[in-house]
């Protein structure tokens, strides 16, 4: 992105659990101040990758450099530079908001006025200034997540690893959380955040689509939508999507087709030409009331398309 060395550089990172390959040799770089999103379904290997980046799991192979530190060689230097939010909520539920902040501040070596001022900042950021003495177990999900973020940034880390920080949180709190992430990135903090909410991808500078341990695409959200698809997208609304999909898979004009809720999405070269052929084919198969409209691609479409390529016989999957 610029002449600066990347904040995170990962080369050929692999993780094997027994004979199961959880992370299949991935490489990527993240620039300072960038928000990189890890997008992928459960079990894709997002958490495993983040844990290796935080020095919590030993990679089977590959190299990780973070802020110039070789993670394998100097994990202690790494830990001072990073903040981490694990996927499972891991603050102390039997301690109060302030006690948790005090504890993590202390563990990061903060004391005295510096500690108090950072605690004040974290309370304000998480919207908990009025409730410092509340037990964490009594907080609602959104507050818990913001407090966890507050604990992770007490020591002003240059890099933040956030593993599904918005899972199980209401949409409004999710929105608020992403605002905080955005603020941190404008202050120069580099952020790697994982999610399985496709709609959250728009908040990231770049996105790594992850499936079965591999990065199947890595680009800005806009570029991903434009490039990866290589065609036009139509939505087909009809009576029985499953049967319709089988009927259309063999149609010459349809390059790819997948079920999306109650309708089908099909990738075609030219929406107008294909629409007629699709309606005709469905009619001959006895599937009535087909309506075909051209739509804009979403990241979900991109993902489904790339992943089906990854899974196919000619794909690059492990």
């Amino acid at each position, binding site marked *: 992105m610029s002449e600066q060395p990347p904040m995170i550089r990962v080369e050929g990172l692999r993780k094997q659990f027994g004979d199961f390959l959880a992370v299949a040799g991935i490489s990527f770089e993240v620039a300072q101040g960038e928000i990189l999103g890890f997008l992928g379904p459960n079990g894709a290997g997002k958490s495993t990758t983040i844990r290796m980046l935080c020095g919590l799991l030993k990679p089977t192979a590959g190299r990780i450099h973070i802020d110039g530190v070789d993670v394998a060689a100097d994990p202690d230097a790494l*830990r001072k530079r990073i903040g981490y939010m694990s996927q499972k909520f891991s603050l*102390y539920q039997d301690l109060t908001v302030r006690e948790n902040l005090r504890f993590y501040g202390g563990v990061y*070596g903060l004391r005295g006025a510096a500690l108090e001022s950072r605690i004040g900042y974290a309370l304000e950021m998480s919207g908990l200034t009025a409730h410092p003495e509340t037990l964490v177990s009594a907080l609602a999900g959104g507050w818990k997540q913001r407090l966890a973020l507050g604990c992770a940034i007490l020591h002003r880390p240059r890099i933040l690893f956030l593993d599904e920080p918005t899972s199980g949180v209401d949409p409004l709190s999710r929105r608020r959380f992403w605002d905080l992430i955005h603020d941190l990135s404008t202050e120069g903090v580099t952020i790697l955040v994982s999610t399985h909410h496709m709609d959250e991808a728009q908040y990231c500078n770049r996105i790594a689509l992850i499936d079965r341990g591999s990065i199947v695409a890595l680009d800005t959200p806009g570029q991903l939508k434009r490039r990866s698809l290589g065609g036009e997208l139509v939505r087909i609304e009809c009576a029985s999507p499953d049967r319709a999909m089988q009927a259309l898979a063999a149609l010459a004009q349809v390059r790819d087709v997948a079920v999306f809720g109650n309708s089908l999405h099909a990738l075609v070269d030219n929406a107008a030409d294909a629409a007629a052929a699709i309606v005709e084919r469905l009619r001959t198969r006895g599937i009535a009331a087909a309506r075909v409209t051209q739509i804009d691609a979403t990241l979900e479409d991109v993902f489904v398309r790339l992943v089906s390529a990854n899974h196919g016989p000619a794909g690059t999957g492990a």
Partner: protein
Amino acid sequence: MRIRRVSAIALKELLQVWRDPRSLMLALLMPVMQMLLLGYGVNLDISHVPTCTYDEEGSQLSQALIARFQASRYFDLVAGLDSQRQIRHAMDGGLCKLVIVIPAGFSRQISEFHHASVQAIVDATDDNTATIATAYASAVVQGFSNEVQMRYEALRGGTVVAQPLAVQSRVWFNEDLDSRDFIIPGVVALVLALVGAQLTSLTIAREWERGTMELLLSTPVTPLEMMIGKLLPYFVIGLVDAGICLAFALLLFHVPFRGAFATLLLTTSLFLVVVLNIGYLLSVLIRNQLGASQIAMFVTIMPISLLSGYTFPIDQMPAAIRAVTYVIYARYFVTILKAVFLKGSGIGALWGPVSALILYDILVVWIAGRAFRKRIA
């Protein structure tokens, strides 16, 4: 090592114990209950054990020994036996639970070898009574042989130092045989070991079970800081527990305390370090509160109650088992406690067991300080 990180961990741990009723009960109520249970338990079972004697020698000396048993309120002499066959009869018929056999060479042994061996045959169906009765019987015999020896010494024309020696021997062997005096110091050791190892066996496992460990691992905390920060609060709790045990020993059980509190504090601290680290080590290795605490219970109660010399005197054990007791760290503390309570010994007199405890401290700290791995798997 950063003090700030250690203090943050220690404070957090203390808060958690304070807010967790189960831990709090374990820390403060369990020592009270155990002291009452063990302190009274051993005392009530054991007076007036029906006892027969079989005096093969029939000398003045052997009769004097039997008179000692007669005088003790722990033994009721029910009959004098005349043959080995009668022993079996008396035991099987439930006439007595203990038979003291004084062998034919008894007097000669004492005068020549300064050591008398008297056979005690016990009815082992009641294991506890059997163990303790044997211990008392052996204490009676030792006290007796000691006195006899001193009398010989005096007769041989040496300087008569009987007076001070007599006092010391009386204390040392606890000749008035108050079972509490004899056993309570050991109970203190057992209770401290039990509570200490239990508490620390939960500490790391709790973080794994509650999912708080992953985040803690991502911080700069080092294994050594973790160990010290985690154990510091329990060390303080352990000392409070020691105070509770001491109060019970002195105020409720009226065990004499002839030593110095400083000696007690120092040796108790040495013992606590071993105990706490063993629990911590189990917690690091097992990562599961229930499993770790059960193993902690097993590794403390079993060997300590059987092999520390807390009820059963070590010098009465078969040689092979006696050898095993040397690895039981609690045996050194039991020895120290008995000496400090009953004999008033200072550190100087106790350098043997004290240095054994220090060696153990170094060993467990060295292992536990490294055991913690900063990785998930």
